[in-house]
């Protein structure tokens, strides 16, 4: 339920149309993850992986926006 972590896609294997797989790198560890439920992913994208399946693509722009806002927060209000 809880332990999903972000990893970067390094290769894709779509030989099984019902179970599209990718090799995903987490730090230096590499694991095969099923990416069947993600429509538009490519090598280099970050995905959230849980028990060998990719649940979503990480919205990198959104992450940057949030972190930037938090950096500025300090003395001023967060949105």
């Amino acid at each position, binding site marked *: 339920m809880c332990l999903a972590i972000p990893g970067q896609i390094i290769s894709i294997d779509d030989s099984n149309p019902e179970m599209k797989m990718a090799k995903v790198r*987490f730090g230096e*560890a*590499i694991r095969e993850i099923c990416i069947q439920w993600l429509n538009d992913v490519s090598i280099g994208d970050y995905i959230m992986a849980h028990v060998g399946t990719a649940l979503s693509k990480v919205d990198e722009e959104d992450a940057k926006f949030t972190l930037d806002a938090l950096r500025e927060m300090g003395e001023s209000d967060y949105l």
Partner: protein
Amino acid sequence: MKDPRKFNLQCPIPKTEYAHILMAHGGGGRMTCHLIQELFIAGLGNEILDMGHDGAFLPPMDGEVAFTTDSFVVDPLFFPGGNIGDLAINGTVNDLLCCGALPLYISLGLILEEGFLIEELWIIVQSIGRAAEAAGVKIVTGDTKVVEKGKGDKIYINTSGIGTIHPGLNINPKHCSKGDVVIINGDIGDHGIAIMSARQGLEADIPVISDTQSLTDMMMSLFRNQTGIHVLRDPTRGGLASALNEICDSSGTGIRLHEKNLPINDGVRGACELMGFDPLYIANEGKILVILPESEAEEALSIMRSFKAGKGSRIIGQVTSDPKGILCLETTIGTTRIVDMISGEQLPRIC
């Protein structure tokens, strides 16, 4: 994944009639003698072992004697970075070093399962020989038994070791004192993750390999220059957390670790995040915790870093007087939490 058995350069296997261990190899008769001669004496022989007595005649030793024993059961037997043979020597050698002793002599007891491949036994024996040479110890006596198929797990090894305590050293967890620093000689978690990766089929660009190694040269140099060391411990099963908790329990002092100072390589980090492991609890096989007064730390680090086994040495924490008997961790976000003893084995989690 590459077969870890092929990591070892090997001499060709001695000529034996059988490819597998049979019950007769443990029977004490001709086949036992042949096994001992062709494999063990050939791979490990020295002037004491070659005498072929039931026990070893050791020359007189200078000073107080340290004595330790350890047994080794590991699955898989061959893993990235080594095999059970490496563990069997390095583990006992490092235990002697943790007593402040120069390791000298090792006994080797093997329990083999009927059907075990003699080729694999030979690779393990060669590893034992190489590890002993690197550690500066001699295998002086041994024993081999064979159990029926299904009653053992291929091979179990016991090693006991003797060494002489370095003059001036008085290693005892009770000497752990407020203001001491805690040093470790390199990355944590390598061995446990190497084993887990081999079992779970976890790949990596740069595979995590076991850190199994003997620390003799580095520690003897440290002993010669530093007699103010209070505590030594090798953080094997249960990792740093277990070793340091035991020290806190014995000494009654507290220890405070700094998360940002913990040396963890990216391979171990990735595997831990994926499986939900805490690196503090993962086994190491070539690491040592050195606790000594802060005034001696700089010199100790300089000595340790001059050896390959100590290149990554750093201070990871301090000994405190409060809270008593408790191991704490200052997290990367500046808060502090308790690091408790683990119950049983860490298992990969979904939550």
